[in-house]
């Protein structure tokens, strides 16, 4: 059963065609990966699903549980059960880690915040009262953002380059968090160009120049992506 169905999606930014008649279905409850080289349109696809400003003027349709998202803003999409973690998380001057995470879980207590931080390998005593600002590294903010998503317990989670800025030791925390999301019933879309991240998915799509050019098992997409796609300079004409 699909949780997300995208049909004939085209989106241009500043006159450049980023997504070209893209169609794809994401099965509920799986960890999916959308892989592709830089500039393929992976992040644009994630932003279009989330309804990020500047990414909503598309043709085609995005259906979430059979309902079109076209007229919904980000808040409404989040209320429906969609969320997104940015490749480079925002900084919030003065906003504590505790309040940042609490904001996404309104009626849940401090223990949920602590638990979420622990799941991404962060010591709550050390981080709860720190501000989510330039005093934290990009990797720390990335883990805090992921913690806020874990605490949300939402249905569809889009993680844009979840390993970006993360040190080797923390990478396992990220992978554990992905596992937790899966075990908790969430559908996960990993947007990545990393083979290491791709391995954590159960099903993958290969995106090139705004179009899905292949899909299937991790092995299949991994071989294709690693063997042909990465060294390729063909400008979106996949070789068979």
């Amino acid at each position, binding site marked *: 059963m699909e949780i997300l169905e995208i049909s004939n999606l085209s989106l241009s930014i500043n006159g450049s065609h980023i997504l070209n008649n893209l169609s794809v279905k994401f099965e509920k409850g799986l960890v999916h990966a959308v892989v592709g080289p830089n500039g393929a349109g992976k992040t644009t696809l994630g932003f279009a699903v989330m309804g990020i400003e500047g990414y909503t003027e598309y043709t085609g349709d995005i259906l979430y549980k059979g309902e079109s998202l076209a007229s919904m803003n980000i808040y409404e999409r989040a209320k429906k059960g969609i969320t997104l973690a940015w490749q480079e998380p925002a900084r919030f001057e003065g906003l504590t880690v505790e309040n940042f995470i609490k904001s996404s879980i309104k009626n849940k207590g401090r223990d949920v915040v602590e638990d979420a931080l622990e799941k991404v390998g962060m010591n709550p005593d050390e981080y709860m009262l720190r501000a989510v600002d330039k005093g934290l590294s990009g990797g720390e903010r990335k883990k805090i*953002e992921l913690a806020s998503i874990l605490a949300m317990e939402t249905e569809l989670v889009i993680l844009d380059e979840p390993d970006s800025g993360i040190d080797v030791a923390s990478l396992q925390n990220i992978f554990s968090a992905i596992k937790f999301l899966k075990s908790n019933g969430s559908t996960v879309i990993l947007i990545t160009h990393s083979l290491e991240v791709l391995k954590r998915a159960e099903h993958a799509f290969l995106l090139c120049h705004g179009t899905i050019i292949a899909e299937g098992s991790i092995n299949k997409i991994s071989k294709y992506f690693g063997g042909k796609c990465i060294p390729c300079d063909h400008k979106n004409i996949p070789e068979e």
Partner: protein
Amino acid sequence: MSVEELIKAAGIHEAVNDKNTGRLIINRDKVVDSNVIPGLVIDAKEIKDGVDINFILKENTIIENPVHLCFGVTDKEAIQKIIMNVDIRKNSKISLIAHCVFPNAVDVKHIMDAKVKIGKGSKYSYFERHIHNEEGGIVVIPKAYIDLEENSRFKTEFELLRGRVGTINIDYEITCGKASVMEMTTRINGRGNDYINIKESGNLVGERSRGVLTSKIAVRQNAKANIFNRMIATGDYARGHVDCKEIIQDNAVAKAIPIVEVRNPKARITHEASIGSVDSKQLQTLMSRGLSEDESVELIISGLLS
């Protein structure tokens, strides 16, 4: 009754009941309560429409507990003028928390005129928190001249986050002697037709003196804010930084006029300012967590002003 109202609004029950904590409570032009602790001299004289205070901390006196000052007006209409001469003598340390509480103000003017001298090697911290009502019928005019002697430290925070601002016109000037350090932070949340005018000036005169002026202002609806921050460095190796952040929403208008002036090639001042709406990425991140746009803006502003 009015004293209890002030204490309740200021939230200083514990300080009032602790004999080891210094305090001075003024309602309009009357000294209604005080507790002077060893090393501290407070001479408060009632004058027309206010109180004239001489505040002295003796040499080599360290006061650990913050001393609480409460400058309040429980009347609807009043003028309150506070004249303060603060003399922190050498090698001493004190922290003051000033609660400026105007729970019923409809037409109240609160004027503060302070002269502060921080003696050699002393540390003085002054946190001023204003608690206003939702009427906006108040005019606040704090003016202070602060003089820092060698190796002294001065830290002040001005906070007006609860209730409507009304009109505020801050005018502070600080002169830093050799190796002295000053930090001045102002945090104000304006809305309605509030008017905020801030003039802060730091003079880094002494060799190796350091200073930071920070303004964090949020204005919404039809509020207006003008921030004039001025830092001048003349001393050898003086270091200064001016930081102004203003968030505007709706029809509000914010203006920042920073002046950084360096008169010594061995000195340096840096400056950063940002004025604008809430950052789009911050807003969209919070909205993607299920907060409405208004809730997101509120959270971002509360963080900035925290």
